[in-house]
């Protein structure tokens, strides 16, 4: 059945956009490649213990964004987390640690935000979109398994490079020429990540987040278990620097994962070299670079009146989750106005 709007990507931008449109009475379907929700705002469970794999905490100052986070039901808000930050390396988002920014996280995992945003929405998981095409007064979205979806309007809410790749499946539409050229000027940075689990009493660490200055490999080590109630493991999330990640991006995980643990050992001491278990994750497009920020979402009307919208962390100032949420919400608002 044709929808008013098809949204590709159930990350924070796509879900915020879907929620906004749904509240305005539009029919919306969200197509998501993965099994879970939230995209890069991801939480994995290890023997029931949540571990955040992408962003470690929420930070922002936009009233709407903070209010939306305040509506997440059934979570324990750890206000002010990270309480203890060490090291002089740069945070992923400039401004994340400054005085005017509110910071907090959820004891249940960052992913609770996505689950909340998705409540009441129709999300089709494990739907990998292969291509998109304009049809009479709308769009057709074709999944890799052959499933076809039709809708009047279409929103791409993916990592920047994935949005570009889908736009490239469209026939050359003159209305989109400058938008495609524009997106070609922007880029995401990768982040190779390893989660390492240790016995809960392996070490008493005096920090929640460590930004090592000296390590060529590591941007951040997060003591994720510091967010959890009675953790079964001491969990460290080791996130690599963009350049280090880029060089190893296409190498097998078994090559770079131990290398990252070694780097953590060099920073923390030999005890960190022998975790009980590790879990590597490759963020190919982890986040936009700080030099790549657009002011707002893109909304293009094609010849037959259908709207193509673009949202995601590049489509609002500041990057990260706040930018993703803002871009999706603003796009929904402007699509509502247009209708």
């Amino acid at each position, binding site marked *: 059945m044709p929808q008013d709007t098809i949204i590709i990507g159930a990350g924070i931008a796509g879900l915020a956009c879907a929620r906004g449109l749904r509240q305005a009475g539009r029919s919306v379907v969200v197509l998501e490649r993965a099994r879970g929700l939230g995209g890069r705002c991801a939480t994995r469970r290890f023997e029931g213990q949540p571990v955040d794999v992408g962003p470690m905490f929420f930070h922002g100052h936009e009233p709407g964004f903070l209010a939306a986070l305040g509506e997440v039901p059934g979570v324990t808000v750890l206000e002010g987390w990270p309480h203890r930050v060490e090291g002089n390396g740069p945070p992923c988002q400039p401004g994340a640690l400054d005085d005017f920014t509110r910071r907090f996280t959820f004891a249940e995992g960052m992913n609770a935000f996505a689950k909340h945003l998705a409540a009441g929405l129709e999300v089709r998981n494990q739907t990998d979109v292969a291509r998109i095409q304009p049809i009479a007064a709308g769009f057709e979205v074709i999944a890799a398994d052959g499933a076809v979806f039709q809708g009047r309007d279409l929103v791409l809410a993916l990592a920047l490079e994935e949005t570009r790749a889908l736009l490239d499946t469209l026939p050359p539409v003159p209305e989109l020429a400058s938008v495609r*050229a524009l997106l070609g000027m922007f880029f995401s940075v990768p982040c190779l990540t390893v989660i390492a689990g240790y016995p809960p009493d392996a070490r008493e660490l005096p920090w929640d987040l460590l930004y090592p200055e000296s390590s060529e490999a590591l941007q951040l080590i997060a003591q994720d278990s510091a967010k959890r109630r009675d953790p079964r493991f001491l969990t460290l999330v080791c996130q690599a620097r963009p350049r280090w990640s880029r060089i190893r991006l296409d190498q097998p995980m078994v090559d770079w994962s131990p290398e990252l643990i070694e780097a953590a050992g060099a920073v923390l001491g030999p005890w960190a070299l022998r975790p009980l278990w590790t879990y590597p994750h490759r963020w190919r497009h982890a986040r936009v670079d700080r030099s790549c920020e657009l002011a707002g979402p893109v909304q293009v009307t094609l010849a037959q009146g259908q709207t193509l919208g673009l949202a995601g962390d590049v489509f609002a*100032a500041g990057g990260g989750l706040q930018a993703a949420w803002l871009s999706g919400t603003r796009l929904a608002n402007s699509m509502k106005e247009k209708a």
Partner: protein
Amino acid sequence: MNTMDAKLNELVERDREHECPGFGPDRVCVRIVAVAKLPSRFGDFRVVAFWNNRDQKDHIAIVHGDVIGAEDVPTRLHSECLTGDVLGSLRCDCRDQLETALQRIGALERGVVLYLGQEGRGIDLANKIRAYALQDRGLDTVEANLALGFRDDERDYAVASHMLLSLGIGSIQLMTNNPDKINQLTKYGVKVSSRLPHLLPPNPHNQFYLETKARRSGHYIDFSGTPHLQEQSDPVLVEGMLD
């Protein structure tokens, strides 16, 4: 210190703890934070610095004569344009528009130029240059420019309105070729008593406005083939164009 300086300095005192619900969708609020004399090649001015609650952008008012409590104050809104205002770029007409406004107001009894910070965050300037890069490749659309943040008019009007009210100006004569600006300012409670057309004196750099017809889109291309961006949300009018 004459009375105008004393009165402006009182506004600094008054604004120390000023807080209000804010103007516009972003609920922007400004405070007068510093005032000084600014003699310039365009006349005798005072410069008034504003702080705002939203971003790191600096907004200033360039004031000539006694404007506090005055009616029908000639007023020009100018959005910061580093490439035009400072570097003398010919991709836009910002410098002509700014100089003309300052010259005119400097020769009148009183008046104000609101200089609205636009490029305070590094990325704004980088994105403007990205917009130029698109233009260099023959690509230029409203959608792309909007996404680049190339002009946030709504924010400008909210900031400008609050600045005028902070300065205690009773009513203004708005120097603009864009009548919609009057509605925008009126919406925020500014009294606009009339509009003064903002005509630029002809010079070698704007001669093409007199000699070429605007394309249907309203875009002008100069003699070098460079499209002129309308960066001041105010159509360019050169004396003689309307004849």
